[in-house]
């Protein structure tokens, strides 16, 4: 029962993060909203894993957390450097 409550309680947070990603208005609002949404996805996978008694969902949740982190870094690097094609020091 506890995990069902946790799963339902996660959804309003997901809706709020989605609303921020849609509304914007700045780039950083959207990047942070996507990162937060990824975190909620990781949490939801873990909660669902415990709810349906599939403990290997924890490993999948950890891999998702890594993908989420790398994706956020890539987007932010894109805004710092402008493209992905060149080393950062050659832009100076």
């Amino acid at each position: 029962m506890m995990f069902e409550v946790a799963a339902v309680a996660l959804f309003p947070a997901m809706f709020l993060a989605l609303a921020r990603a849609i509304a914007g208005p700045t780039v950083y609002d959207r990047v942070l909203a996507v990162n937060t949404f990824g975190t909620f996805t990781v949490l939801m996978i873990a909660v669902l894993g415990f709810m349906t008694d599939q403990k290997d969902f924890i490993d999948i949740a950890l891999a998702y957390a890594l993908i989420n982190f790398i994706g956020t870094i890539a987007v932010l690097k894109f805004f710092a450097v402008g493209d992905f094609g060149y080393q950062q020091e050659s832009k100076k």
Partner: protein
Amino acid sequence: MSTLIDLILLTLMAITAIAALQLKDLFGAVMLTGIYSLLSALWFLILDAADVSFTEAAVGAGISTVLMLGTLALTRRDEKIPSHPRILPLFVVAITGAILVYGTLDMPAFADPEAPIHTHVAPHYIEKSGEEIGVPNIVTSVLASYRGYDTLGETTVIFTACIGVLLLLGIGRRREDDES
């Protein structure tokens, strides 16, 4: 209970997709497709397709977001508003959708045990793969052993495509004209 979670998750996916279509700021639309990929990865996981879910999370939320941002760097960030309504594309999409729906009409019912896909080799995999291969997950044993050569070929194709894209984008090469 799980029906409620499924419903809320699918509602979130629908909201994200419609919002990504409506946004005129293309960067916001790219971010929303990232969210959509995360949601569909979660959805695949709920449907017990962990391998598809991993692919969706890595390719959909990771690589394709980065590729679309790279495209945005070469083009404009705001969407060009079409000057006249596009009747022909709508027509083509509607016809294609109708044909696809028509194609599903003579498919066997969902979870029908007499469906051809469940009577050919699937019973063998379900009953024997544990002792033949020794991997607890049936999907993994099919991917990595029963059709191992096919998976090796797939991996080679993806590796070659990856090298080609890296060469085309010039990642790792320094810009010569900046250095004096």
